[in-house]
């Protein structure tokens, strides 16, 4: 994983426009959040390999970044993205990692199921 290159990500988002895509979207505090600190509210959610299509998408911010994908009937939104997988040519793998390197948020798009 590398730190997000804004222009590179915008280019890749554009390449994935107007086609059926499998999405993995996730946000998590980790299952142990409240075990480590009782004041924390553990929460996590993910959706894996749902099929979407977006007509317009962009990356925004100065880092950590936001991504919004406009679909015919709604939106995909993700905030806190810091890293992307530079070795992936076909798929877009974005993630937000916190100061300890732990994954907090992930947004992934692919023409094939994950």
């Amino acid at each position, binding site marked *: 994983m590398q730190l997000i290159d804004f222009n590179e990500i915008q280019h890749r988002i554009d390449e994935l426009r107007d086609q059926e895509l499998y999405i993995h979207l996730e946000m998590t505090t980790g299952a142990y959040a409240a075990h480590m600190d009782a004041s924390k509210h553990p929460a996590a959610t993910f959706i894996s390999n749902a099929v979407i299509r977006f007509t317009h998408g962009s990356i925004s911010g100065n880092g950590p970044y936001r991504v919004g994908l406009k679909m015919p009937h709604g939106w995909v939104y993700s905030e806190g993205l810091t890293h992307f997988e530079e070795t992936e040519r076909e798929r877009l793998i974005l993630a937000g990692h916190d100061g300890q390197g732990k*994954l907090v948020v992930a947004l992934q798009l692919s023409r094939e199921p994950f």
Partner: protein
Amino acid sequence: MKEEMKNAMERHILVVLPHPDDEAFSLSGTLAKHIEAGSPVTYACLTLGEMGRNMGNPPFTNRVELPGIRKQELEESCAAIGIQDLRLLGYHDKTVEFEDTALLDGNIAAILDEVKPSLVYTFYPGYSVHPDHDATGAAVVRTVGRLPEDERPTVRCMAFSRDHELAIGRPDVISDVKGFLKQKMGAIRAHRSQFHGVIGSNSLTDREMQERFGTERFWTYRFN
């Protein structure tokens, strides 16, 4: 009542845990000890921990590659402990509690029937923090509980939820693994995507290592 674990040879030991690395801190020394006594060990790991948050710092892998990395780490951990029979059951991280219980229990029942363990290690259902831990322990207890009483293996559970001892008391099996810290540290270090920074540098003295890692604790599950 504390009972120092007797290291008698077991006919077969079955370990059922949901995530690669669940064995490392609380069980690996005990397993190495069993293996030295000549007991064969089968480790059934339900998922590949594909939803784990740790990937190194800075992250050296990603969500997509993590399952493959964790599979390798688990194989390395098993090699360090001496486990030769590792079964990957193919469930998905974080979903064990939502699985079809007939499917899950059937899977565990088939392994029980095949290896006929005299001793099973798993998590204590309800006292093991992660929903996958609790669901795995519950499935094991359910499945073993269906066996005729005289065919049931002993089930030893790990527990670490807040205030668990208020509910289930003190552990009844204390396993001294000070003589097996080489295997245990090998298992912990094998899971490098998960435990980077946990162990830190090698600055702990032998005595500190023994205090921190030298004892493992279990609760024998009471079926009646």
